[in-house]
């Protein structure tokens, strides 16, 4: 049985093409995915992300619990509302999921995890909670709408409950504020400024319609994928999974090595891997010829060793094909990609192609 978000009817009324996305009936586009992509880069678009899983962690030992659970360190969070991106690792340092943790106070944190990994995540969180004084509560009755683009904040603020609108004007990037059941994070998955808004389900339809009225364009999962790829943001299940560690997934920056005394799940394995200097690295690729890079295409290095594209596609902003790839560390400045048996030239670049509407690499 396919699950539906509270906004399902809105998508259908807008003529969205719907697809099954990890068991959820979700909009892939409302017409042209490329138009939606450009609209977010240049103005403002919105995405129904109510399928994502919101979990509240509460208790006297909430902080200690999350310090043990996550590879990044929630002790970095000292200002109320501040967010932290982290991997949740298994004992072998494989990535169970990536998530955002918001600091509400020392005894209350909110986690947002992927929809596709929900069941496994919750089981893991419960299992690890054993020795800690914490409780974990899922918040399935919250809808979530991401409003993204340079005009996102100015469009959203007047539509929020009044007191929240005032605080939302003040919050810094990667921070959140809340009022009652409404929760606004200045976060996103597009490389643009914007908000991710959690709100009670019975308010979601009205809020969505108000956003439409002020000219916020509805955007589907298709544009969400090309936007995050241009921004060089990993997608769980494609760019990493339980068999990959953060060091070979471009996520070394999310590991808190300090303080060295902190124990966390996956630490020992991670330190062993780091000692050995992982042979694979995670890079961006820019195709120098016509064609489209896709996940699972083979990367052929100058020394004939091989890597693999994890996510690839067409970049509407650059009008070129780009990809994220896991490759041997011997990779140079260029490589070849096997596209249907033909070897095509690609350039190796930093995996951050477009941020804040600006192309980050030389074309």
């Amino acid at each position, binding site marked *: 049985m396919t699950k539906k978000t509270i906004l399902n009817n809105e998508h259908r009324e807008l003529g969205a*093409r719907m697809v099954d996305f990890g068991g959820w009936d979700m909009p*892939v*586009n409302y017409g*042209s*995915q*490329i138009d939606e992509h450009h609209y977010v880069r240049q103005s403002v678009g919105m995405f129904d992300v109510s399928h994502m899983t919101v979990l509240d962690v509460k208790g006297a030992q909430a902080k200690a619990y999350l310090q043990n659970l996550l590879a990044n360190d929630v002790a970095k969070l000292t200002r109320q509302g501040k967010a932290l991106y982290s991997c949740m690792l298994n004992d072998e340092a494989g990535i169970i999921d990536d998530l955002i943790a918001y600091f509400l106070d020392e005894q209350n944190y909110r986690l947002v995890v992927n929809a596709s990994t929900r069941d496994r995540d919750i089981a893991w969180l419960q299992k690890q909670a054993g020795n800690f004084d914490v409780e974990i509560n899922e918040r399935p009755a919250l809808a979530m709408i991401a409003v993204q683009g340079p005009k996102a904040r100015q469009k959203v603020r007047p539509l929020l409950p009044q007191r929240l609108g005032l605080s939302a004007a003040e919050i810094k990037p990667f921070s959140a504020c809340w009022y009652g059941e409404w929760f606004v994070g200045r976060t996103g998955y597009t490389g643009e400024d914007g908000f991710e808004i959690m709100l009670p389900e019975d308010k979601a339809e009205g809020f969505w319609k108000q956003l439409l009225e002020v000219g916020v364009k509805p955007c589907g999962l*298709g544009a969400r994928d*090309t936007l995050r790829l241009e921004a060089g943001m990993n997608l769980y299940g494609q760019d990493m999974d339980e068999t990959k560690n953060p060091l070979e997934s471009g996520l070394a920056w999310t590991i808190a090595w300090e303080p060295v005394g902190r124990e966390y799940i996956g630490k020992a394995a991670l330190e062993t891997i780091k000692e050995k200097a992982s042979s694979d690295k995670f890079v961006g690729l820019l195709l120098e010829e*016509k*064609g*489209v890079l*896709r996940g699972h295409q083979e990367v052929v290095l100058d020394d004939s060793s091989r890597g693999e594209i994890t996510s690839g*596609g*067409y970049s*509407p902003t650059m009008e070129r*094909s780009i990809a994220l790839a896991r490759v041997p560390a011997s990779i140079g400045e260029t490589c070849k990609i096997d596209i*249907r048996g033909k070897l095509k030239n690609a350039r190796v670049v930093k995996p951050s192609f477009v941020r804040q509407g600006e192309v980050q690499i030389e074309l």
Partner: protein
Amino acid sequence: MSNTPDDRKYADSHEWALLEADGTVRVGISDHAQELLGDLVFVELPEVGTNVDKGEECSVVESVKAASDIYSPVTGEIIAVNEALEEEPEVINDSPYEDGWIFVIKPADVTELEDLLDAEGYKNQTEDE
């Protein structure tokens, strides 16, 4: 709803085949197919002069979502390709039946067209997709 003109034939795999007055067959993809694929971003055209069999992969169209093979609806020789698609693949989205044609084939046996679906049959087939 997708548009399905009845002046041509359709393959299960979503190509259309239009018999021209000079006996050649023009080939493209249906409106339904371009809708399913989404915005097209790349077309790999066959080479003029290539001989292809009916049902053989001879071209690839790639959208923002995925790559999709184009199968020749008849056996014959490729005699023209729509080079405009190399620069503007989105023409297939805008005009799948006219400006978005992909190649023209000189058929070895024009009666092979009779094996394809007519517009009505194709519409019935795609209704559930």
